[in-house]
């Protein structure tokens, strides 16, 4: 649990960060809250000869809620999110999900940027961001660019972000309707056995729109367009739930680990999704 030696940088502007990333290429990484990266370094599973701490960069800590638009700075911590009244009102699913990440100690340090950028299939925010159709704002040597969360994840720890790009914020339209983030885990501080993010709107007793994303059931978060579509026009009755689950099961690809074998995970994914949809629909 002792990391290999590394050089530590704490620049105070983004240009410097990008210059360092360009200079050291693969050998450099930015660090936000450090609660995914440092454990990996201590296990010597990540070797980072040049560690660039983002905490002195100004302007990455803001939460903005204005005119139905939400912007979360990369360095906003999960705790900040939980503590923010504007978020609780505008996008309560964010708070509900953040409360299910690890424990208070981790949430005081772990950031939205790190959670979304990391590319660990176990992270909870990527699925939530896909569910909400969030946009990921990056900046690199060629300036800023934006990628949809639904297009960002390629494989475990592989994302659309280039090595010399930094995630500066995540933006989204404030969702409407009912919501739920349902997660099964073995214990506090555990990643999901299965988790589902659901956002649903209700028009006269029928589902007008539904968005569904699943966490830790594939090597990337899984936004299941068809699962959402299966609910539209229904009243979330048993058949509709069954159809949504069937569609979702077509999109996930869990693997066996200490949380259990594949058959168990697929079964639980279905149960969790049904519960999430039912809860979201009750709130819609």
């Amino acid at each position: 649990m002792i990391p290999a030696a590394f050089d530590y940088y704490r620049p105070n502007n983004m240009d410097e960060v990008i210059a360092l990333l360009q200079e050291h290429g693969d050998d450099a990484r930015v660090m936000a809250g450090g609660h995914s990266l440092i454990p990996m370094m201590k296990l010597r599973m990540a070797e980072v000869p040049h560690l660039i701490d983002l905490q002195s960069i100004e302007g990455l800590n803001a939460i903005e809620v204005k005119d139905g638009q939400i912007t979360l700075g990369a360095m906003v911590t999960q705790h900040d999110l939980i503590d923010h009244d504007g978020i609780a009102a505008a996008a309560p699913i964010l708070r509900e999900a953040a409360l299910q990440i690890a424990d208070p100690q981790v949430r005081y340090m772990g950031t939205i940027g790190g959670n979304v950028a990391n590319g660990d299939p176990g992270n909870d925010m990527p699925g939530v961001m896909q569910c909400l159709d969030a946009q990921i704002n990056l900046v690199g040597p060629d300036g800023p660019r934006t990628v949809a969360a639904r297009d960002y994840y390629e494989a475990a720890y592989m994302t659309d972000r280039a090595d010399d790009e930094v995630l500066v914020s995540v933006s989204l339209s404030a969702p409407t309707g009912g919501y739920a983030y349902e997660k099964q885990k073995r214990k506090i501080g555990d990643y999901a056995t299965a988790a589902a993010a659901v956002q649903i709107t209700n028009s006269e007793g029928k589902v007008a729109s539904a968005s569904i994303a699943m966490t830790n059931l594939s090597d990337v978060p899984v936004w299941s367009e068809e699962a959402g579509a299966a609910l539209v026009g229904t009243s979330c009755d048993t058949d509709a739930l069954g159809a949504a689950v069937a569609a979702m099961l077509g999109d996930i690809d869990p693997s066996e680990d200490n949380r259990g074998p594949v058959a168990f995970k697929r079964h639980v994914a279905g149960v969790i999704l049904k519960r999430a949809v039912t809860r979201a629909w009750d709130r819609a």
Partner: protein
Amino acid sequence: MNDMTPDREERSANLKGMGCSRKRVEDARFTQGKGNYVDDIKLPDMLHGDFVRSPYAHARVVSVNKEAALALPGVVAVLTAEDLAPLNLHWMPTLAGDKQMVLADGKVLFQGQEVAFVVASDRYVAADAVELVEVEYEELPVITDPFEALKSEVVLREDLEGQTEGAHGPRKHHNHIFTWEQGDEAGTNQVLDNAEVVAEETMYYHRTHPCPLETCGSVASMDKVNGKLTLWGTFQAPHVVRTVASLLSGIEEHNIRVVSPDIGGGFGNKVGVYPGYVCSIVASIVTGKPVKWVEDRMENLMSTAFARDYHMTGKISATKEGKITGLHCHVTADHGGFDACADPTKFPAGFMNICTGSYDIPVAYLAVDGVYTNKAPGGVSYRCSFRVTEAVYFIERMIEVLAIELDMDAAELRRINFIKKEQFPYTAALGWEYDSGDYHTAWDKALETVDYEGLRAEQAERVEAFKRGETRKLMGVGLSFFTEIVGAGPVKNCDILGMGMFDSCEIRIHPTGSAIARLGTISQGQGHATTFAQILASEIGISADSITIEEGDTDTAPYGLGTYGSRSTPVAGAATAMAGRKIRAKAQMIAAYLLEVHDDDVEFDIDRFVVKGAPERFKTMKEIAYAAYNQAIPGIEPGLEAVSYYDPPNMTYPFGAYVCVMDIDVDTGVPEIRRFYALDDCGTRINPMIIEGQVHGGLTEALAVALGQEIAYDDMGNVKTGTLMDFFLPTAWEVPNYETDYTVTPSPHHPIGAKGVGESPHVGGVPCFSNAVQDAFRAFGLRHTNMPHDHWRIWQTANGLGLHD
């Protein structure tokens, strides 16, 4: 009542003696981060050690190339078996009478085995150098299953080739360690063959680990000028370590000082002698500088003393009415690559022969076969060497299975088979003499408190609701009644490497009437400094607040066998009381002299000696202490000191009745503990608050083991649960609110009647949690399913019973 009464009450309260929930004196430093643990020890010029460990579970070590590591600035030495061989320290004896490699001698037998020891000026450099040591391995076939080991041609322990005698009879196979048989085989078989009802079951008690918050470590400092070796370490038995270190190193015992500083949890994990300790000593001798070794969490989980790994097969017979007539138990015990249990020589499977439990079973037979596999050595933790947890799990599962076989209520089945109060002292079929007990009273109290009848009625309704499709949650009522066997123990029976398991206390009363007492035990969180002062306060009439308790420094403490197996109160606690009584006897003579009466004319009264019949004439213990040092008293030596070495006449037998109510989500496999009631009878209660704390802690560990805590291996012998992400260590979030209760049945042979409590909740808790899970499925035909009951295994049970169809 006379007008002296309030005064006496107040004097008694001031003592903070036995029965008082005195706050723990240790906590001031622990809660302020002022504890002093091994890793807090920093000495000038100290070097740091770190291990190169085997990634393979079974392999030949072809070569070790140290060059690159030695070239790294700051690296002082890289030790291998070759370097230790000239000192004859490349192997060491285990506490079970086997031997274990200190550093890989030609081969490795488990993943994580110590291969080379790197010594560097800095902890970080040491870790870097570990990566630079090049080890060439040649992989060998891996055996992780003891049944396969007993059939395999692969020889795990080549060093034992040709050794056909095990510790207790012939070795049956080259991977076999010992067979241990107890009881009457022919008689038991005869009863089973002719029984009206027989229930059989096979169960696996999985391998787990106690994961103390502080990992193991040591600091060795060899002073070459005066020839003295000082060794600080995470030792539950510091004196044993000193003796073993002396025998191994040839350094005379008076030149070795072993110190156990604050210890952050032991649970048996810190009983054994580890290669790290030996290597830090050798490295300090070689370099002439202090050397520190502290393992990390993963090393602790993968290489230090585990618990269990017991494959148990049972047969229990009864009459149709449920009166048990016989019990048969066979165990295949997976000891890993070396047998590093800490068993008394006569008991290679500990006290597994307590497996007749709390029941009056006329005839029984037990056989245990120990087997080598490619897993880590060290079955010591969580009572593992004494095997009481296994025994109680076994019998409490067999009772449940028999209840199913008889279609009987499991609480009632227990009740009709309990040993009766008037049968104590009771000699069990497998030999132990239970000192005292009142099982029926405890059981009735427990069942009444939880409204057992009501729970069963609710459960039956739930089953019906489930069948009607109205709920997906089942309800389980977990029962367990356990009898512990602690306080090892009588020297005639119990030893560690030949050292008798007595314990000791030495008391010095200071002239101003305060005192220090030193013991051969060592607290790892049990609160000895608090409770032993309370025992003494009641015995010698000096307030517990004026008594310092010191343990763990072999230069000052009297010889003792340490703290594990709930033995401190039964053994060292008895020594404390006995030493206190010696002080009191001398104080009586001094008081009589001072009061100018005959010795027999004074009597002890809380904190003083009074003249019989004239309580206004007295000398307080404070006055007596002062006189002991400062007044010439004819025929009496100056000073007020005493020492007692206590060899208990018998073990003590705490017991308890536990009930757990659980709701289980059949679809996700998630269990929810609604209620947990624990009644403990540990005899005389010294500090109720500390007892409650011990019970909470032990129950939490029991919960962990029953519901998910596991050291799991894959077929290649890789540890699958080597970090706290996968290894279940419960937090407040997973833990229910425990309801504690008690009855008091003192031990008749212990000076203060105390029996010990530290391990009871673990021993009784594991079957209780497990029985709750299994009971939930009883109505659907489940007989037995193995722990750990984590989500997916519970789900699998439900799935296997067709509950997802």
